[in-house]
């Protein structure tokens, strides 16, 4: 009973602490745009933002844009994650693969992800394919890297248990390497989820304009509708936050065997 009470209290405290700053910011925002501190054309008041959100959602393109961005994000994320998992495992398990592909990979990962945009544009054009390739690349790198590290960190002693029990190569990968790497892999997937979303926005900014939250923001900027721009930014933040929360929850569940 006591511990339950203590727990619910700490949860409440945590939520209160987490909300303090955002709420304060909103108050300052509201006060600033009403009090004439800033030009409301640069910082529209919250109620106008809410109005815009409602209008865009019901009759405008907001939901379509959001769906387009999320679809792009998830498809790219899925492709990048699957490839990263395979690639990282291969590099971690096979000496030959490591020797052949390792140097290129370790050099390529040093290149800032944004720097790939021109190359990908040339190779894949500016259309949807290129955007998804870019998002996939952003997801691929952290997953591949963390998978590789995770597989490498697998205990030699447990691999020996597998050998003594006549595990096949594939069994050693599936029963020992991948579970050993699971915490690292989940970290990688978590990062991939965040990077993929950032990359989605970047692709929408820097590649051809099309449906998507990035496109919405660009449209808002071109028409000097600051409320549209702010709306886009707020949505980007909220989606990123939601993805992060979901990843954290999944991670905690999947790694229960590690305990507190």
């Amino acid at each position: 009973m006591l511990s339950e009470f203590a727990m619910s209290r700490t949860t409440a405290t945590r939520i209160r602490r987490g909300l303090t700053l955002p709420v304060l910011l909103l108050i300052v925002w509201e006060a600033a745009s009403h009090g004439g501190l800033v030009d409301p054309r640069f910082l529209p008041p919250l109620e106008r933002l809410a109005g815009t959100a409602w209008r865009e959602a019901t009759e405008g393109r907001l939901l379509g844009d959001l769906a387009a961005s999320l679809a792009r994000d998830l498809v790219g994320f899925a492709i990048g994650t699957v490839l990263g998992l395979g690639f990282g495992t291969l590099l971690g398990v096979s000496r030959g693969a490591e020797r052949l592909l390792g140097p290129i990979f370790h050099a390529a990962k040093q290149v800032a992800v944004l720097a790939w945009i021109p190359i990908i544009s040339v190779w894949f054009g500016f259309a949807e394919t290129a955007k998804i390739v870019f998002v996939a690349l952003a997801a691929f790198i952290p997953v591949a890297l963390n998978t590789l590290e995770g597989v490498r960190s697998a205990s030699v002693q447990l691999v020996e248990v597998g050998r003594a029990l006549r595990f096949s190569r594939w069994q050693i990968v599936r029963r020992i390497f991948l579970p050993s790497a699971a915490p690292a892999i989940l970290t990688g997937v978590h990062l991939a989820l965040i990077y993929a979303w950032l990359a989605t926005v970047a692709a929408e900014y820097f590649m051809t304009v099309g449906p998507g939250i990035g496109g919405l923001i660009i449209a808002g900027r071109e028409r000097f509708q600051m409320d549209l721009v702010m709306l886009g930014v707020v949505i980007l933040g909220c989606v990123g936050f939601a993805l992060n929360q979901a990843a954290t929850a999944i991670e905690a569940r999947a790694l229960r065997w590690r305990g507190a």
Partner: protein
Amino acid sequence: MANGELGLQGIAKTFRVDGRLLPALDGIDLQVTPGEFITIVGASGCGKSTLLRIIAGLETDHAGAAVHDGKTIRGPSLARGLVFQEPRLFPWLTVEANVALGLENAGLSRDAKRAAVSEHIALVGLTGFENAYPRQLSGGMAQRAAIARGLVNRPGVLLLDEPFGALDAFTRTHLQEELQGIVAREGITAVLVTHDVDEAVYLGDRVVVMAPRPGRITRIVAVDEPRPRSRTAAALLHKREAVLAALDSGGRGRPEPRRLDAPDEPLRQPAAAIALQGAA
């Protein structure tokens, strides 16, 4: 049922540590007849674990020949089960799943596997902990789960590296009885390493006494006492004295029992050992 005959001829193993050669085993000769129970005692670092690993087939880079039922051992086999000195449980699997690993490639039906697993979990007294994770077990419980994993597959040759070291006296006695029963019933050939001379004499048909630097067999004490044995039988006490004397004359003192989770001790004076061995 496989025969379980083992032959070790001129086994020698040298490790390279820090660029220097460390002779771990030298000139090991031993014939083990099917169904025989061999126990090995010897000071820490005399190569007992290394010898078991060679028989298991985990260590193939050695001189001499290790032969199992007429075939040279070139790698691990399900016909030879090894219980490691450490529990080596998979931390992400429950006790039940860890024990089932022993049957992963045994080709049994699902139900047969399940039955064998729960039977062996009961055997080592872990019933009720089937769904516990290794981090939730005590050292002794983890070791018992590892013993169950080694036994569940009923290999013709069972290699055990200080399996009972981390157990309390009561559980140890119980598991000694169980092990002895299984080994006798199934005609299993067993090689068990221990630091406990009483255990070695009580369980062994022959007690192999080893001495370190380089690891070698200094004496083999046959214990002809029929089974079931009484721990206090005069003949056993006699053999115990003989084993202790052999250990002492090895010049390295008696083996001290060690905790399972104690870190491996650092290499002691490898230089002297090398000088003794020459450039072997």
